[in-house]
């Protein structure tokens, strides 16, 4: 097996060979940092708005300096809604997101390997079925799906939101298929010679090599579930089961004064878990285990 043991390498087309100052690097940093700031302006606006008074957020929208600085948006938002502390919503989101993300990534990897590497009858048919499920607008399957879950007695539980993700998520399956197909088959052959079966190849060769795709899927799944609004709206009735995405909208009302400040403050808070997850998983993308160590 040592033939396929991969070596970790930070790679890229132009590895920096020395720390010597180069004007090209300065230009690179100026450009990238400048672009980052332009991209970030709206994020900063969001952050700043969370320190403004609800009633003046829009009349002072052009200003990036709150006057006065208000912290109460955070304490008020954190108190939650109608006796439900905001922490409840975060907890609900975490349960939904962690369960569905773990399920989606694991099942998708298995399925992707089946599609990418094993020849079998009807493969194209099933792959086409999978692609088709992504092309039908959700709005029209919502009602039949709702009736289905109602018949199962799953309404007002996390099940309709979580369980379907344990059967593979087409976006991730397709993503991993494409990644597996960039891996030279020679590696499989080598492992086979070493006496690995299909599962052996999958776990020992494929899985380590598609770490970047797994990490990418985990990040996406995490924040897509985190921001998902329509499924919780449909399937969760009791406010004590509401996730963050739905709770944030409870601060707003079209008929009377809305608590914009608390909404912005809690939007900022609800970004934190997603950013943390991104930080943790992004290094698996960067330090993607390269096949360089082979041979």
């Amino acid at each position, binding site marked *: 097996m040592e033939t396929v043991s991969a070596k970790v390498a930070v790679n890229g087309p132009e590895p920096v060979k020395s720390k010597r100052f180069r004007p090209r690097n300065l230009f690179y940093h100026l450009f990238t940092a400048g672009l980052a700031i332009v991209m970030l302006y709206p994020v900063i606006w969001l952050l700043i708005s969370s320190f403004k008074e609800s009633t003046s957020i829009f009349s002072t929208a052009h200003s990036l300096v709150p006057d006065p600085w208000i912290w109460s948006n955070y304490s008020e938002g954190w108190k939650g809604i109608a006796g439900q502390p905001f922490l409840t919503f975060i907890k609900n989101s975490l349960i939904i997101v962690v369960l569905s993300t773990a399920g989606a990534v694991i099942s998708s990897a298995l*399925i992707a390997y089946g599609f990418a590497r094993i020849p*079998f009858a009807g493969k194209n048919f099933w792959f086409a079925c999978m692609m088709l499920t992504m092309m039908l607008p959700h709005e029209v399957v919502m009602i039949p799906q709702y009736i289905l879950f109602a018949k199962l007695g799953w309404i007002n539980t996390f099940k309709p939101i979580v369980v379907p993700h344990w059967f593979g998520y087409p976006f991730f399956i397709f*993503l991993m298929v494409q990644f597996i197909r960039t891996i030279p088959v020679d590696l499989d052959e080598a492992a086979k010679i070493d006496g690995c079966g299909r599962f052996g190849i999958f776990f020992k060769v494929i899985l380590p090599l598609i770490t970047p*795709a797994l990490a*990418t899927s985990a990040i996406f799944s995490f924040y897509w579930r985190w921001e998902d609004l329509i499924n919780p709206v449909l399937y969760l009735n009791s406010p004590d089961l509401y996730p963050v995405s739905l709770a944030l909208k409870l601060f707003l009302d079209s008929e009377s004064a809305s608590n914009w400040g608390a909404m912005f403050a809690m939007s900022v808070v609800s970004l934190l878990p997603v950013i943390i997850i991104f930080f943790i998983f992004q290094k698996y993308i960067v330090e993607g285990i*390269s096949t360089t160590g082979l041979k």
Partner: protein
Amino acid sequence: MKFRPKQDNLAGYAFIAPFIAGFLMFTIIPMLASLYLSFTSYDLFSSPQWIGLDNFTEMFTNDEKYWSSVKVTLIYVLAGVPLRLAFALFIAMQLNRASRGVGLYRTLFYLPSILGGSVAVAIMWRNIFGNEGMINALLFFVGIDKQILWYQDPMKALWTLILLAVWQFGSSMLIFLAGLKNIPKDYYEAASVDGANAVQQFFKVTLPLLSPIILFNLVMQTIAAFMTFTPAYIISKGEGGPLDGTLLYSLYLFQKAFSFFQMGYASAMAWVMLLFVALLTFVFFKTSKYWVHYESKGE
């Protein structure tokens, strides 16, 4: 005919079993139900009435809003997808360098996409393009002192949506980045030994080896763009205005289904869209053999 490797049905089905199980349990019945509904008049509250092809003939011959939504959506997809992908690839290549601070940049660039389709984003975006918003302030700063009224002209309003899509390029960027990381370093070394410069390296090494990922992003982003709903919904408050300028296909479909309670008509719209997008995807896959390079096919 090419060489056909020996089939291994049992192993194949064992691996994709979860997908088939989920597909049969949760997906296929609702999908077929919506196909049936597309031939009916269904208001959600009483049982569906079979009306044959009426929904489709109404859609194609008598619904000007339908065609305007088709036009808006095509512009959105044709402008939004290439811009977003080009931008994502460009940034991914910038970030695929072993340079100091690259981790920070990656997070900074990714942040806008994390904001997703939340209410906060829509409000912020409306504000930025408002008459006294940041964009007009910037334009004033560079000497254009005529306010651009972004929400008075249907085309300009659509561009705010397209720019929002480009701004949220993070997921494509991340996938490109993961793909770039997967390209073995020795390929570049070999090219470099052959005397290829950076541009040649990009065309000779990066593009072909990244092509499966480009195909993926192209297909998925196109599908996603056709389905775009949330930004249009929250930015136009569900109306699709001004003058139907942001009335994307999905938004019109949603209005039909849940504001006007014409679920049959909405289902018909959905299936027309599915056929069109499926055809387009089929074309992408068919042409892909001319430009996508798979390692696994062997050299």
